[in-house]
């Protein structure tokens, strides 16, 4: 088809879902008339009408609460929270109802809802716009949490999220919204939650990441190969919950050297879960302790210091060399 950026790719996925299934609804703050603050829902209200694409009041609890009711009665709501930092207003609805209703009703009420929320740093924005709190959701039983790293995977993963029978938190790294374009195929694609992808094969070390951190991670893998002849296998987790433990175990057993990169704070972050997975599945293949290259345990700094907080390719290269006990040549 065409080269799309992530905003256009998500827009395409929503349009395809609305076309394919009459029970799909799209709503949230400014998603209708305005087409979304990031233009993700641009043109949908015109195409599908205000019965299926509509604006809501500034009330996140109401948005998710409405979605829970709709899902319980057989609709497939795809709602948007303007920034992940505002999801805490809706946390009670997400944690206590969306995540539990299917279980609580012993399967009588399905919960096929999707909550989209932009998140993450690098956009020179404010704290509630830039933080990475994905583990709140990944830690919650009953929820699935997925994060795309490119336009093509965003379109396919959103299709997978909408078709999933459980509530899926679809977190969009807003740093990637317009970061680059990628060929998105004509025919619809679907990636269900729970599948990771090997973006780059390698033997010497495994770099695990997801979302916006895939970019510096891939860049670091390129530098390590070009300058140090170190071949890194790069894994895009795509889904934090469920986690693709088979993929992690296989790659870590292959290389024995693993580093995980994420911008969420280090303590209790996704990296800890990956380390624990390796511990359980491929411990005896480990050659060195697993490295966590992560955000620091602070509220993400405002934009003047944001770069110091976010892992970048230089930091990743440095950490990987330290893990491999290789001293980098100067220059």
């Amino acid at each position, binding site marked *: 088809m065409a080269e799309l950026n992530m905003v256009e790719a998500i827009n395409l996925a929503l349009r395809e879902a609305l076309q394919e299934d009459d029970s799909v609804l799209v709503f949230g703050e400014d998603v209708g008339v305005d087409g979304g603050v990031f233009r993700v829902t641009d043109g949908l209200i015109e195409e599908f009408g205000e019965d299926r694409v509509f604006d809501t009041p500034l009330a996140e609890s109401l948005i998710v609460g409405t979605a829970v009711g709709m899902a319980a009665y057989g609709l497939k709501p795809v709602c948007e929270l303007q920034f992940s930092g505002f999801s805490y207003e809706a946390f009670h609805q997400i944690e206590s109802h969306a995540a539990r209703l299917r279980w609580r009703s012993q399967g009588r009420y399905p919960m096929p809802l999707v909550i989209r929320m932009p998140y993450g740093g690098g956009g020179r924005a404010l704290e509630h716009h830039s933080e990475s709190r994905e583990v709140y959701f990944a830690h919650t039983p009953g929820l699935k949490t997925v994060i795309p790293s490119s336009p093509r995977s965003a379109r396919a993963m959103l299709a997978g999220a909408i078709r999933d029978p459980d509530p899926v938190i679809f977190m969009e790294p807003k740093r990637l919204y317009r970061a680059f374009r990628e060929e998105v195929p004509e025919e619809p694609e679907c990636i269900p939650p729970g599948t990771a992808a090997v973006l780059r094969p390698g033997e010497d070390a495994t770099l695990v990441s997801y979302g916006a951190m895939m970019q510096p991670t891939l860049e670091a893998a390129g530098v390590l190969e070009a300058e140090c002849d170190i071949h890194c296998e790069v894994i895009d987790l795509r889904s934090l919950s469920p986690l693709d433990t088979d993929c992690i175990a296989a790659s870590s057993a292959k290389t*024995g050297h693993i580093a995980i990169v994420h911008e969420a704070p280090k303590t209790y972050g996704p990296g800890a879960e990956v380390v624990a997975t390796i511990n359980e599945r491929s*411990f*005896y*293949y*480990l*050659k060195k*302790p697993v490295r966590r290259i992560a955000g620091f345990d602070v509220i993400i700094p405002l934009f003047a210091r944001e770069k110091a907080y976010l892992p970048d390719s230089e930091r990743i290269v440095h950490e990987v060399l330290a893990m491999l006990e290789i001293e980098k040549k100067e220059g």
Partner: protein
Amino acid sequence: MSEQFRLQDPGEGIHEAEILEVHVSEGDEVTEGDELFSVETDKAAVDIPSPFDGTIDELCVTKGQTVQVGDVLLAYTRTAARDPQSSSEDKGKEEDKEEGKDKGKDEGKKKEEEKEQDKEQDKEQDKDVEDELPSPKKAASPATRRLARELGVELEEIRGSGPGGRVESKDVRRAAEDSSSNADPAQQEGEQAESGGGAAHAFDLDDWGEVEMVTPSATRRKIAERMETAWRTVPHVMHADYVDVARLEKLKHKHAERFREQGGKLTITVFALRAIALALKDYPRFNASLDPESGNLVLKRYCHIGIAIDTRQGLLVPVIRDVDKKNLTELSCELVEIADRAREGRLKPRDMQGGSISLTNPGALGATFFTPIINYPEVAIVGLGTVRGELEPEPEPDREADSECMPQRCWLPLIIGFDHRVNDGADAARFARRIGQLLTNPEDMLLAA
């Protein structure tokens, strides 16, 4: 104050030594450079000179004892005023002792290892916090531990080459390779006793009558280790042929006296050295080593030939350097000299390293055909058997030997053992034929550049 003098690591992977001679007694005054001990390591006999001026307080070892690198050999008191450097050294040693005291309850063996580990750490000066913790266990990654389990190697008994003495996978592999030869024999025996006995027990040999247990010498164990490595690593193939050396024998008899006068001994071996050196120039793939890491073939531009010498201690293979650049007189003298040194146990480790190829000649003892083992990492070995056949009496002065009457033939069995990874049978046949031609026609050898 009394200080301890320990067996230093002489490098070259030597872990232990046998005390051959103790040159001092308790109470002796020594000056720097005085010989304290003669020891035999895996590789050679060496004298240990005193690095200090002082008095021997206590001898901690006796003749015949096997000691490990780092073991205390004697305690002494310095007579000379100390320089500041040595006082800081003392401080370190004090700390060592403190630690030793804390762990006094542990069995001796373990303590020794810890000392070694501590020493390693001192040497490495590693800043890693993890490594500075006094740990009774060896550090190693899970993958290394799994490898050790799979290879049946005790991690605690391995010297780690990683930061802070951490045991790496390559250390485990090396330990697995030479577990039999490097372990302390006493300890090994102890272990075997625990697990139901040594070889005698393992094969129930003592069920059939009285047996005697002999602990091999360090040299013997080193030979065993090296032979095992070579045999396991190298796909050996033998090529054997007879070479007519009638004219060479005549030449040898004719000039023997002249060489003897110069301190040499003109033997088939001397001629063979020269012939091999010339043949290696034509067939450089026999002067090579296979790099196990890269798989590359390392072609050597030098020509150093090892000579197998039968000594009281066992087989030693000193190396004659630059054979291609020396004439027969020089070679014959050097051969006598190096063989004497080998028999007297005066070889240095370096004397037995860096060969291109080796030559073994058990012909004097009687041999027609045998299969020598390559001196790994070389890729070939040349063996000579006993010359068969009689020489005719010298021809009449007016009749040239090779003009009218056929000379009597003398047959030398020539054997090439080669690494089939590097050379093929045809290569070996050509290499052997070249050596054979040179030995058959000594003038070619003498005229060659």
